[in-house]
């Protein structure tokens, strides 16, 4: 049979992670293989072409498009300062001539004798890519960027918003089932990444933003609160560029859902360390999950060996999380993997497995599509 596997979210106490740090356009790579980089050091940089604006010189001067070259004071490729003259109509008396001044600093991109338009290009926009994690450069992609590897604790979330950030990992609640209340959030969490248990509502998240919290790690939030935070209803799960003042990583999903004990324990072990997190999520082609990377700064980076992580098929004894009703959010252990198709309540014939839940000995049948492995 062809390979079938159930993708899971990784929760690893100690592993090796490689992060691509790549520019959006070709540019200059700062580091070489073997360099140790810091999360805030620049590893690659480039200049994005500046924005373009247009001036219809022909309309402004009241001339024919084909005559435009005669009236331009600057040619294609010429630079100019803001308010510098770039075109002027001819008149015997200077006072009567119409002058066109540059609305910004830049260069002439093109002059069209068909449309009479002049395109102005603003100065290039510098773009820098930072290390994001403390680690070692193990690969250089010429003119594009580097690959940084580190020994770390690594947790994948299921959904997030907001870009890359880092801060000290602090706990604002006492257990994975707790709710992060507005009152829990104090100024001691400024610049920190806080762990908030099962759930936080809009008031709590707003308070965190006010206090200056860099990131929040939670089991879940309400869809309605997400809408309030973003200011719109998110239609497709492609995130990471939101500018809401905080990065949010959900470990379980939407609703109030206790954070998996293993995730909680993994975070708890690293309390006080610096965590790099990203909320960027893309569920469609090229899957990107939000992530929490907590490097071990004392690890011997000179001895990093590349880790090959392969998705494995689900097996009896695996710990799994149920990811759909009626047992959504519950965690248990696989006890049986019947191979025949089984009819479930919805009358669908599906491949199923049996799971014994944590906390009690309840054993239920669940479609294999509705669980995910909690992977090391």
């Amino acid at each position, binding site marked *: 049979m062809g390979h079938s596997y159930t993708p899971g979210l990784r929760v690893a106490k100690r592993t090796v992670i490689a992060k691509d740090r790549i520019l959006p356009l070709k540019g200059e790579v700062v580091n070489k293989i073997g360099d140790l980089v810091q999360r805030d050091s620049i590893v690659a940089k480039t200049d994005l*072409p500046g924005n373009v604006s247009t001036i219809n010189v022909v309309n402004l001067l009241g001339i024919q498009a084909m005559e435009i070259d005669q009236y331009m004071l600057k040619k294609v490729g010429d630079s100019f300062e803001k308010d510098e003259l770039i075109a002027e109509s001819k008149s015997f008396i200077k006072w009567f001539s119409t002058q066109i001044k540059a609305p910004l600093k830049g260069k002439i991109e093109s002059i069209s004798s068909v449309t009479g*338009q002049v395109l102005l290009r603003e100065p290039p926009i510098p773009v820098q890519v930072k290390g994001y994690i403390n680690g070692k450069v193990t690969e250089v992609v010429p003119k594009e960027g580097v690959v940084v590897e580190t020994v770390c604790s690594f947790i994948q979330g299921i959904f997030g918003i907001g870009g890359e950030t880092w801060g000290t990992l602090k706990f604002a609640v006492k257990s994975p089932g707790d709710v992060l209340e507005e009152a829990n959030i104090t100024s001691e969490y400024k610049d920190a990444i806080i762990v908030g248990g099962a759930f936080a509502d809009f008031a709590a998240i707003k308070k965190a933003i006010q206090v200056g919290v860099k990131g929040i790690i939670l089991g879940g939030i309400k869809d309605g609160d997400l809408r309030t935070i973003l200011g719109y209803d998110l239609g497709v*799960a492609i995130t990471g560029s939101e500018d809401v003042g905080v990065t949010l990583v959900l470990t379980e999903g*939407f609703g109030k859902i206790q954070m998996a004990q293993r995730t909680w324990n993994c975070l708890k072990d690293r309390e006080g360390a610096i965590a790099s997190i990203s909320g960027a999520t893309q*569920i469609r*082609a090229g899957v990107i999950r939000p992530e929490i990377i907590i490097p071990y700064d004392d690890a011997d980076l000179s001895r990093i060996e590349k880790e090959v992580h392969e998705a494995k098929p689900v097996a009896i004894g695996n710990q799994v999380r149920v990811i759909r009703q*009626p047992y959504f959010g519950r965690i248990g252990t696989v006890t049986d993997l019947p191979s025949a198709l089984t009819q479930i*309540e*919805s009358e669908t014939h599906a491949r199923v497995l049996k799971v014994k839940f944590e906390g009690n000995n309840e054993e239920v049948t669940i479609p294999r599509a509705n669980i995910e492995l909690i992977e090391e």
Partner: protein
Amino acid sequence: MSKDIQAIIATDCGSTTTKAILIEKVGNEYRQTFRGEAPTTVEAPFEDVTKGVLNAIQEVEELSGRKILDGDKIITTVNGKVGVDAYISTSSAGGGLQMMVAGAIKTMTAESAQRAALGAGAIVMDILASNDKRLPHQKIERIRQLRPDMILLSGGTDGGTVTHVVELAEYIGAADPKPRLGMSYRLPVLYAGNKDARGKVKEILDHKMALTITDNLRPTLEEENLMPARLEIQNLFLEHVMAQAPGYKKLMEMVSVEIMPTPAAVGEIMQTIARLNSINVIGVDIGGATTDVFSVIGETFNRTVSANYGMSYSISNVLADAGLKNVMRWLSFDIDEKEVRDRIKNKMIRPTTIPQSLEELKIEQAISREALRLSFDQHKLLAVGLKGVQQTRTIADVFSQEGTGQSIIKMTELDMIVGSGGVLSHAPRRNQSMSMMIDAFLPEGITTLTVDSIFMMPHLGVLAKIDGEIATEVFQKDCLIYLGTCIAPAGQLKKFGQKIMDYKITMGGKTIQEDLHFGDLKHFHLGIGETAEVELNPAKNFDVGAGKGKTYKGTVQGGVVGLIVDGRGRPIEFPEDDQERKNIIKKWNQAMDLYPVY
């Protein structure tokens, strides 16, 4: 190819799954015999589409006992149970073909350009036009941001405006967008506009982008010539876009004919059905991320893709655009609205899950009705006559003057609806598929409904390129499942219960003579291959295809579901009172025998 063909293996590389089917000669006929599937392997860690293809084919090998692979190679000579005559494939992996189109006037050349791109199997990310009310710098910024796979530039009839077309070329040149896949290849731009502007467009774009020039897609206002642009788009897709995707170069060497974009292949087979049976057809393919709608009305083929309506990745978008109230109106039970919102978001982030409970299935099917409805609404907006065309009017037109650009889809003239995609093809009961399609498309008069049994239309679409006869034979014998016929008098009343039609149905030697009241939904068993004679007498404000109040007599086809007589009006009327609404939904569900519990 000749009728000596013994076996063909076909794959469709989707965003998440690669599906393989085997077509074999069984006795004197061609049948689809085995299928296999495997996860698509375009993404890391595999980054080679052929791995998923080989896995899917391997599954077919194991099930069929036919040896198809020799290591990583397909055996393309047949010797008994070894080898196949041809290997063909379609692809929508990596998000399919994403295009931006531009034209001088939004409702004329830009709209024609949009139709050309969609018909070629693309997703249209944005439509630029000289009169789209955006400022030049906003247009430039937009082109830069989107990073399409390809741009189609049109504009101007031959001999018409040059300035507007050149202006658009200048914007594209200034934006100099980088392609989505691969940092170093040049973005393909196809110019299909005023031939008088070709020189200038070349001057502006040729040194920056991979410019190709083809025939004007709107040579005159009265004429749309989309085929040259469509074919060129598909060529460019293969040469430039696909060649950048991981493993595609290898795949292109493996296939016997060129790889087609999946929606283009589905469009091909839809047109074949319509042509063979001389009927008007609407087809829909509802996926996880997008919903494609196809129509073949007379000689005109149209395709639209609702890029953000689907049942998993885009499910939240369906909710956002349809509104929660429209989703909830199909449910017969109480559930907290916030809970529904959270569940839909959870499906978005875990798109491969399936409904385990009956309640979950009902919610999912309610959303699918709305996704199909919204996608069909979008299709009707684009499947229109040409705008800006001069019309000759007579005195008789004074009281019924229709503007140009009217929708060409008239529901009473529609003969068949074909459904495809997981939620329709894999619904636990076929009655559910038929019900979802009736509720979303609101057929009027007499309409046959069918579904694609296991989603093999893409494979058959590309097969039609090498052998139309085999493709048609397999399509009719193994692909299409006839669900039955829907009889729906079109019209509206304020209150349920009033008589809107009487009818006589003769089938299997028996005649049923009944009245249909407003709000009724009736289901009669009429099996596959069976027919019934019907005589329908609608009330004076209702039309069943022959005109308001006019009798219709004819023959209707059966199917796995049978005959549905739908008296719910068009559009379907829902009671204002919530309890009454739930009761009527239960009644309708029961009439259609949709679920084990209502």
